[in-house]
């Protein structure tokens, strides 16, 4: 057999065997990977909308997905807004809980971030940052309080606390939230999805 034929046969065989292996492993893990992503989203929705026991996807576009959080009776009790944008280092994705009129925040959870450890990465810390997002008046754009305060009571209803030493990360989160809320309000006006519908199930 010529060298050229051997090279072609060996590389083709190795490629085919590798491809078959990967196809098998990909099929076996596909369901679990999708389940992990789904579970993470569901846990976040239940966390950011206290009282919600399940959720329903209402609308989806690039960097914005809106979920409806429902209580045990199937009534819509709030929205879980999954929004993403650019942070200081990389992409930040977050889930914000609001009431159904989009005028008040409930809670927030950071889904994805690669901000500076010890500084910007504190955006996913409950005590340092997330607690300051609870129950805020979001009927208009929220603003950032600089310099930072120590307790949520020191903030006005439409103010969010800054993380000391991580202003860009704090501003990035604020920008993502303000844009997402504005877009959600616009979508509701346009009737892009129904709200307050009684649940059939």
């Amino acid at each position, binding site marked *: 057999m010529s060298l050229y034929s051997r090279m072609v046969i060996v590389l083709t065989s190795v*490629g085919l065997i590798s491809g078959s292996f990967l196809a098998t*492993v*990909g099929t076996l*893990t596909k369901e679990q990977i999708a389940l992990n992503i789904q579970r993470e989203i569901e846990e976040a929705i239940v966390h950011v909308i206290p009282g919600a026991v399940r959720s329903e996807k209402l609308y989806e576009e690039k960097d914005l997905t809106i979920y409806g959080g429902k209580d045990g009776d199937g009534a819509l009790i709030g929205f879980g807004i999954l929004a993403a944008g650019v942070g200081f280092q990389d992409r930040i994705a977050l889930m914000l809980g609001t009431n159904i009129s989009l005028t008040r925040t409930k809670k927030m959870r950071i889904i994805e971030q*690669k901000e500076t*450890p*010890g500084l910007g990465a504190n955006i996913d810390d409950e005590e340092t940052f997330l607690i300051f997002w609870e129950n805020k008046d979001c009927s208009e754009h929220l603003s950032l309080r600089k310099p930072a305060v120590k307790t949520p009571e020191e903030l006005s209803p439409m103010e969010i606390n800054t993380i000391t030493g991580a202003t860009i990360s704090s501003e990035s989160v604020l920008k993502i939230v303000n844009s997402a809320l504005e877009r959600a309000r616009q979508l509701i006006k346009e009737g892009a999805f129904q709200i307050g519908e009684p649940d059939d199930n």
Partner: protein
Amino acid sequence: MTTKSIVQEFTKGLWDENPVFRQLLGLCPTLAVTGWVINGLAMGLATTFVLIFSSLVISSIKKLIPSQVRIATFIVVIATFVTIADLFLKAYFYQISKALGPYVPLIVVNCIILGRQEAFSSKNSVGRSFIDALGMSSGFILALLVLSSIREILGAGTFLGYKVMGPWFKPWIIMILPPGAFLALGILLGIALHIESKTKSRK
């Protein structure tokens, strides 16, 4: 052909030919993921899986591979196991997979793995290649654990997430940032060279 015993074949990876401290291979993941011990451990285990299985396959088919396409063949085999490791982590260790980000797929270009295939597995038996891969992986895990322990303890005052420093301790945030990786690795390499020169002068 090597004349080392099986034990020597394994232990050479721990110190004499340690991939990080003595050969300076695989430094990209070493520097990038060692901010936290759990990430260093997960990267070490994923690399171990890829190195062992790649070595087993390459040493089994070495006589069939024409030398002109050996590197391409090695890369296809390595990439297959890296993708399997990546999918496995995504499916069963989702949070760790998220924390490691692109560094698991980048194991494909880790010099330790391609280097061992070229230098060892393509010239030795399956058994010796397995022992060599096991030794090198253990040396790599050891290096990642030492580096990540120093960085996590000094940078956050924790080990594997558990607080190990008292309330008096003010974390050195720089240690979990990229400069901390270079500082810690530089000091460890200095210590390794010092030990080596002392050992040589005694002989």
